């Protein structure tokens, strides 16, 4: 076997990125961002609310957290569903105790499967972010534009209808996108997305269908990643989240506002033995002056004119 000559051709070897989605920029050389009230750090809490269908396809890939036992996988189907019955309410209760309004990234199918869940999120004053239709519907470049658009449109129809919110934020299942996803999101009225893990600040993306912001969402301090990919303990998760906050908070003194994102999963942090670790994290962060906790949409709105 040998390689075609094309393998030594590099058509996108040029200044900046090898695509047109966004421009390169040095996070430490940007004009400082000012948050409302002079806050140093915007705390962006995003709780994932997910449904993993029993028959979710393995191709072309499974979203993280997917069922992994032979069909019918009672084990993980129900474990993930625990988050929708108990876990999410445990997190909602803690957030209410702290008086926080945050974001919940919700699979569209939750609107019909569990309307009471969605109602509790909305009544808690939280923002609903579209999290695709369900965890078996991953976005990828093998989908036709029509099929992918149908998934996005249906997700938004369900969530907008059930919440009365505009639902302008998007998080793909497994943070997976195809080549067309940003266009399709913009076309369906999405203003910002949480899929890209390359920045601690909002930045502008380019689509053929209008503006789209990339909002930061930490990848490696996500509760699920630490617990289920790194197999690290809850105290180790707490330590890393605190350490992450400390550095961003310190940088904000010199470089302007930062976003501290805290991705949570209702079926991970909503477990009885975990939720008090979440409280420890919140107490630590909220114990600092200049922390502004807000739904991602508000953080995006504050950033939009500055980036």
């Amino acid at each position: 076997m040998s390689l075609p000559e094309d393998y030594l051709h590099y058509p996108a070897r040029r200044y900046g990125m090898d695509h047109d989605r966004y421009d390169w920029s040095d996070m430490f050389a940007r004009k400082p961002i000012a948050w409302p009230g002079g806050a140093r750090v915007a705390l962006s809490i995003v709780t994932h609310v997910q449904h993993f269908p029993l028959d979710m396809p393995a191709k072309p890939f499974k979203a993280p957290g997917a069922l992994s036992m032979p069909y019918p996988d009672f084990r993980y189907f129900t474990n993930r569903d625990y988050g929708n019955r108990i876990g999410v309410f445990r997190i909602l209760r803690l957030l209410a105790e702290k008086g926080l309004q945050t974001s919940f990234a919700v699979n569209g199918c939750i609107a019909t499967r569990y309307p009471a869940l969605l109602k509790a999120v909305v009544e808690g004053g939280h923002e609903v972010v579209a999290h695709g239709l369900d965890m078996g519907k991953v976005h990828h470049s093998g989908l036709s534009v029509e099929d992918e658009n149908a998934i996005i449109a249906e997700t938004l129809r369900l969530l907008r209808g059930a919440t009365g919110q505009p639902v302008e934020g998007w998080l793909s299942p497994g943070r997976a996108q195809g080549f067309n996803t940003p266009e399709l999101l913009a076309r369906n009225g999405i203003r910002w997305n949480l899929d890209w893990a390359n920045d601690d600040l909002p930045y502008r993306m380019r689509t053929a269908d209008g503006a789209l912001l990339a909002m930061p969402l930490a990848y490696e301090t996500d509760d699920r990643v630490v617990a289920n990919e790194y197999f690290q303990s809850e105290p180790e998760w707490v330590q890393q989240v605190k350490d992450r906050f400390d550095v961003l908070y310190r940088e904000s003194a010199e470089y302007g506002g930062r976003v501290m994102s805290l991705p949570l999963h209702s079926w991970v942090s909503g477990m009885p033995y975990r939720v008090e670790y979440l409280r420890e994290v919140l107490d630590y962060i909220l114990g600092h002056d200049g922390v502004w906790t807000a739904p991602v949409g508000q953080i995006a709105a504050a950033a939009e004119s500055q980036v």
Partner: protein
Amino acid sequence: MGAEPMQSDLGLYDYLPWPGRPKITWPGGKKLAVWIAPNIEFYEYDPPNNPTRTPWGRPNPDVLQYSHRDYGNRAGWQRMMAAMDRAGFRGSVSLNVALCDHHPEIIRACADRGWEFFSHGIYNTRYVYNMTVDQERRIIRDAFDTVRKHTGQELAGWLSPALSNNLWTMDILAEAGIQYTCDMFHDDQPMPVKVRSGKLISMPYSLEMNDVIVYNSQKVTPRHYGEIIRRQFDQLYRESDDSGMVMCIPLHPYLVGQPHRIDAFAEAIDYIAGHDGVWQATGREIAEAYHASGAYDAMSAAAARHAQGDR
């Protein structure tokens, strides 16, 4: 391929046990050479497939993994560089050379600090698997030309892209004038590599100090990584009383440059820099000292004697 039987050992180096080796002396009477090798990489959004290895786990574009790596070039590199500046370490950059075209700003910041650039291939999503010798030679030439054009430096070192190699890779690297390879992990001291022509050194790099292995394979926490670095250093520093050794810390700015990781790393390299017997070197400087002190010749001779039965 197929027709070529696999070999059990390429014989790239002779066995030479640690006790009884010729003594290595580093410049200025320093005990331990410590070098830091940041892998400043560019992974492609839509790379071609290689039959031996598919670049991304998901179909192109693998937005999550692509953007995770891109974090290093937007944010992580600055934190990593600030930590190294504070501890007085210059980097020896394991460079996907196309990054010279994509992000000349990063290259300039490294060059301004006197950092060395060595080659880590063109992109980290292009492997040398299944290349012909001629194709691989063109990669090497591209790397030399690109680094010279953008930095004025003549390449001295090589770490194959994503550690992909062919049977002949070491031979053609040496033939092209590469002085050291980072692809072998068999020693704590630089060692001669048996190549067809020229002189090639295997420079101690490290899998176990490499942040990508530590964080992602070993699943080690950031603070424990700091502990691992100190322990590795303490042991090698003690042992270097007898003969100079080398410690390498290979990094990836998209990993170590994350906010939750940078401080533990920064404190660990401050600790290392606080020792008088440390030689804060680059890969090229270590290779040059290895030749200038006669260590290359002495080790080659010792290895030959050992192989001939003087055991």
